[in-house]
């Protein structure tokens, strides 16, 4: 009956403009079925717009996209039957209770009244919201609302779940709970495509990451591949005396033959390491030059560093125009 595909999402040349702003500017995607795929980028990068096109909420200006082989424009209803979206803003009715919200969604999906209520109650229990079933959602905490949103998205567990910034604004505990939910859904066979501006979230949760900046993909791959693409690793170092940092940077750059980034705290610096074998010699040279170090470590680069390497800008300062993204 259906075009079948091993890819949950394929997109070629997606473009969407709002007025004169090209929010999404030629995005190609291949998201394998199963696992978590993260869209990583700052505010206004085009993450939400891309997601909305894939979820059939926006029609692309150019390009095409298929979800499990179904075209998001021509076969929009077939796509809607397989995906679910949890938007950035509460996608439940805040005046209704948690139970009523889930019953409503279940009814809209075709459950009979009694089956809808049973389904709603078991979801509330599973999400640890059972005690708040008959309270209005507007009285829920941020973390509870987010769980409500996700519960409403899995009344029928979708084959592909879109989560738009699922943990933005949540406290660490709620954040951990959302991560657990995502992991459970993936274990149950759902593909999760999420957007995030948190690098550690993509790092911890995602199997594959697409880095998006100003409407374009700047990199795509597994987290390991992305990190590897900018070098084998990163040497992090703290000098004892801030006055010695410039000397240390010079010395490291020469010895490792790699660019050195200075940290914001006057004593830390990091260098991308193309060849880890050079590290011991570099450290010895530092010691011989009389530069005292209080701490050093050799690790994989963080996604922060990946973003910096890919775009030339750190993530924090690239937050720009959010227009068109938030709606």
């Amino acid at each position, binding site marked *: 009956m259906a075009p079948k595909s091993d890819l949950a999402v394929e997109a070629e040349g997606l473009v969407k403009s*709002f007025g004169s702003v090209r929010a999404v500017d030629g995005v190609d995607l291949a998201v394998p079925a199963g696992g978590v795929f993260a869209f990583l980028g700052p505010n206004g990068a085009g993450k939400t717009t891309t997601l*909305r096109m894939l*979820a*059939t*909420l*926006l029609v692309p200006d150019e390009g095409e996209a298929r979800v499990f082989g179904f075209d998001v424009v021509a076969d929009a*209803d077939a796509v*809607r*039957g*397989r*995906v*679910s*979206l949890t*938007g950035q*803003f*509460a*996608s*439940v*009715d*805040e*005046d*209704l*209770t948690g139970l*009523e919200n889930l019953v*409503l*969604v279940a*009814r*809209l*999906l*075709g*459950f*009979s009244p009694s*089956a809808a209520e049973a*389904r709603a109650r078991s*979801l509330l*229990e*599973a*999400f*640890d919201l059972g*005690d708040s079933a008959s309270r*209005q959602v507007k009285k829920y905490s941020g973390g509870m609302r987010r769980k409500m949103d996700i519960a*409403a*998205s*899995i*009344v*029928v*567990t*979708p*084959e592909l779940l879109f989560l738009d910034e699922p943990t933005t604004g949540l406290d660490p505990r709620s954040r*951990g*709970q959302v991560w*657990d*939910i995502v*992991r*459970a*859904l993936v*274990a*149950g*066979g759902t593909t999760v495509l999420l957007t995030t501006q948190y690098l550690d979230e993509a790092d911890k949760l995602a199997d594959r990451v697409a880095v998006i900046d100003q409407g374009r993909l700047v990199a795509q791959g597994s987290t390991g591949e992305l990190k590897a693409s900018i070098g084998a690793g990163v040497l992090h170092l703290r000098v004892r005396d801030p006055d010695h940092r410039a000397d240390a940077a010079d010395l490291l750059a020469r010895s490792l033959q790699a660019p050195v980034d200075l940290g914001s705290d006057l004593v830390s610096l990091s260098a991308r390491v193309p060849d880890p074998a050079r590290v011991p010699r570099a450290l010895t040279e530092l010691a011989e030059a009389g530069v005292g170090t209080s701490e050093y470590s050799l690790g994989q680069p963080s996604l922060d560093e990946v973003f910096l390497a890919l775009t030339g800008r750190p993530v924090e300062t690239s937050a720009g125009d959010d227009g068109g993204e938030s*709606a």
Partner: protein
Amino acid sequence: MTDAPTRSPADEVEQILAVILPASERPARPSAMSTVWAFAWRALLRIKHVPEQLMDVTVFPVMMLLMFTYLFGGAVAGSTATYLQDVLPGIVVMQITWISMYTGHNLNRDLTGGIHDRFRSLPIWRPATLVGPLLADAVRYALATAVIMGLGLLLGFRPGAGVTGVLAGLGLLLVFSFSLSWVWTTLGVVMRAENAVFTTGNMVMFPLTFLSNVFVPIDTMPGWLQVFANVNPISVLTTAVRGLFHGTPAGGAITGVFLISGGLLAVFGPLTMYLYRHKT
């Protein structure tokens, strides 16, 4: 807020795995009717949870009926008892047509929040999101009508056509209001803030209601105003409803109401749906 007994992450994953319902077990798609009913149910729940919004349909009509009857009755019709027979159908018309703005207002709320995205990403019959709430409006209409009719009967309102005539008049009013609602849903899609729907709606309804035969006979107005008041849809509607209430049905006005209603529905129904579908 106090924390619920904390569950371990492993528990959490276990619990959620237990409620996974694969798409293969999803129920069959609901019919258009049951989708409409689900949205009507939601609108009713909203009334239940925010009963303050019923002030408009209970307290306000009482105020209007009392004020107009006793303030203008003597001046306009010579006695409050006589005036009441004429003004009551007019006040029913005014209340019901004004209440029809609610669905547009609530639609705007949904569109500016995030829930609209959820509805749009479900494989359902799209117009149900609008038709359902319009059906639930019937509850507001019924309440407002009951309040006005109840108080009216106490004050001495005697509809010449009895229960059947009143029901026929209200039926016609319902047809008109359902059609008029689509004007407000169009506004609801276009406007950027929910209050703008009421503000703009009031700017339309205020002159239409007062420059009509709802409160005063049109022949007391200056000639140029009579021209407007005579073609004003609210005048046509009021004439038709009055006639039906009092057993003197005005065929021309009744036909007029159906034509205007059909016109409004034909233009604003598809327009709302078009704008709604293309809303980003």
